């Protein structure tokens, strides 16, 4: 019986060249775009020096997608966009249309399937987030669930341009921050609040002790012998529950149903527009994990967005708005309590103390 010849093994070929995936209209005008405008929320037109225009329809996605859904998206792109599409860094789907007449029929088809169109200009675009309980071993919360409930609440801001500026929301389910949420307008961060549990019986078999000790940013881990077995102990006073030891040593889990939860950070940005990029700062130190819909978290995020929408001046990002009104005012008008946890106590903390009498009362 003849067997299939084994194909020659190919390695290190890299990704396919992007050139083959570009719409012919894009190829013709590559690098020669002149300007763009938003025709309406979710619809952009880019005009080239040649006078040709490409229309982009931006649609939301759940980020976690089934192949069936992607194939349906392909059907839409075949029907309206000559079979060309792209994705954005915030998990939106962008259909690239040469024909302006296709915009409204496409939007109609997308909306009929429950796919919102928007995410452009002064809106809340898709949530950048991590894997959470779907796929991660260190998560303190579920990122997909939080992103879903938060966007259910803020959906009107995705499909409109009514905010003073864009608001970028990100969710990371632990301090590892695969979603690098630390420069977001609003960041939702999964947190642990108790030191890891040390499995002394197994630690020696699963972990390299010197690497585990070295993994701790605050030097809270010491080698120790327990019941004749080499292990480690954690200084509870020094531990700040980052989970870095667990990444190195599986015998030190720190997930805890009753104590894990979520903190909320505000005012970060990465764009250099007007002001420098900024880190997000702590707004709410702890909210409980309350699946499936995290009502405390969605309520808090909605409140921050609503207060920002009502008070910020045009073009101010959340961070710029707070810088102008001052942080005490932010806590005052949002009604969020300011606590000892808001005062930094890690390295370089004193750079955040107020060394001026400039204050607004």
């Amino acid at each position, binding site marked *: 019986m003849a067997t299939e010849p084994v194909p020659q093994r190919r390695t290190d070929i890299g990704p396919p060249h992007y050139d083959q995936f570009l719409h012919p209209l894009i190829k013709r005008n590559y690098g020669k775009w002149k300007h763009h405008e938003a025709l309406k929320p979710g619809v952009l037109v880019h005009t080239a020096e040649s006078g040709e225009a490409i229309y982009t329809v931006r649609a939301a996605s*759940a980020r976690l997608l089934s192949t069936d859904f*992607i194939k349906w998206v*392909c059907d839409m792109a075949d029907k309206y966009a000559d079979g060309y599409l792209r994705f*954005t860094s915030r998990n939106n789907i962008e259909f690239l249309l040469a024909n302006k007449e296709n915009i409204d029929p496409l939007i109609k088809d997308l909306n009929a399937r429950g796919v919102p169109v928007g995410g452009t200009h002064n809106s809340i675009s898709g949530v950048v987030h991590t894997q959470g309980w779907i796929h991660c071993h260190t998560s303190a919360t579920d990122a997909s669930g939080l992103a879903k409930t938060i966007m259910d609440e803020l959906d009107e801001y995705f499909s409109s341009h009514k905010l003073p500026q864009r608001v970028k929301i990100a969710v990371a389910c632990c301090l590892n921050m695969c979603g690098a949420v630390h420069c977001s307008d609003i960041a939702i961060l999964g947190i642990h609040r108790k030191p890891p549990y040390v499995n002394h019986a197994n630690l020696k078999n699963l972990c390299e002790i010197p690497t585990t000790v*070295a993994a701790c940013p605050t030097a809270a881990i010491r080698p120790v012998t327990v019941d004749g077995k080499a292990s480690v102990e954690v200084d509870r006073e020094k531990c700040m529950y980052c989970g870095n030891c667990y990444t190195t040593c599986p015998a030190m889990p720190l997930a805890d149903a009753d104590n894990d939860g979520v903190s909320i950070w505000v005012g970060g940005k990465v764009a250099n527009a007007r002001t420098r990029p900024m880190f997000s700062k702590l707004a709410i130190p702890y909210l409980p994990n309350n699946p499936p819909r995290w009502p405390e978290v969605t309520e808090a995020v909605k409140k921050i967005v609503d207060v920002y929408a009502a008070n910020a001046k045009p073009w101010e990002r959340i961070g710029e708005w707070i810088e102008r009104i001052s942080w005490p005012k932010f806590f005052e008008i949002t009604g969020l309590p300011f606590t000892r946890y808001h005062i930094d106590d890690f390295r370089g903390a004193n750079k955040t103390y107020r060394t001026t009498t400039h204050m607004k009362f």
Partner: protein
Amino acid sequence: MEDKPKLDVPTPKLDELEKGPWPSFVTEIKRAATKSAMARDLVRQVEQSYNDRVGHWKHGGLVGVRGYGSGIIGRYSGKAEQFPEVAQFHTVRVNQPAGWFYTTKALRELCDMWDRHGSGLTNMHGSTGDIIFLGTKTEELEPFFTELTQKGWDLGGSGSATRTPSCCVGPARCEMACYDTLALTQDLTMEFQDTIHRPAWPYKFKFKMSGCPNDCVSGIARADFTIIGMWRDAIRIDQSAIPEYLGFEGFDLRRDVLDKCPTKCIEWDGKKLSINDKECNHCMHCLNVMPKALRIGKDTGATILLGAKAPIVEGALMSSVLVPFMKMEPPFTEVKDLVQRIWDFWEEFGNNRERVGELVTRVGLANFIEAIGLEPNPYMVMHPRENPYVFYDVDEAAE
């Protein structure tokens, strides 16, 4: 495709997340579950997590394809007896095309391959930029990889490797692009294949290419090596396009543009807009607000910044300027040489799990740039030192 796929397993908690206007990831898992036993057990395990309020995945393990040390993230269920189909549920990272452009033909091919070898679940895309294929068994990895490479695709980076470079939409569909972000991304990805596929660094190393200071791929917050498009000459003004903006409802040139300019370098005399380009700090605001009237200059290139990272281990960092302006044209020799010099230093002096930004913090920027052969430059800092404890070179002092 069914709108609301029904499963024979009860998932009351997750069902709550199929309500509301935003697209539901639960519906997506259920869709995959109508075809894949793995996705079916995934729904069951995630429902369990929603009841228990903890994740049920075990620590990763070493799995991969032959000859590669990265691209596959091993994942095992901590409840394998209850959910046997996800006992192994590994992630495959596939290197995305630059700019995340696709044809439907290519996307369908990828989906078909994943249906044959995995759970049928994906992320389009992961945070670093890869296509994420979520959930397959160890025995499927090598056959999937063979099929993938036959179709012209390859794995992305993971672990202590160069991570898959990614970029903004760039000159493919943006008038703000100061260099070809897609070309550079493709070039660096091909040049550094070995370091992407075989982890050999102290820790991860990420590249992000943004075409302008709007930084749409968040390079300044997320990439060890950040390349942000920049121009050096004058912003181009089309005076004839200004009246259109003045006619927009709610538009106020003074409030929305002039007063928002951080260096107040724009003037309007009622007929003509002028910009004092020597004062412009390239913030992008006026260009963002009036793209029909204003365009970036013609002498374009990029600013190179180094060192961003999330908090683990020593705290979050943003990238800081290494080279204020560099021309950015193929074959990109100057930037590749710089990368190599940084890697040589990091490889020799970086501690285990120390990102390059933390290394720079530890040894000091002055020592670092000396080691990689860059001259001190005031663009590298926000301001000169305030601290008078200066380590003068004793050898330079007179006897």
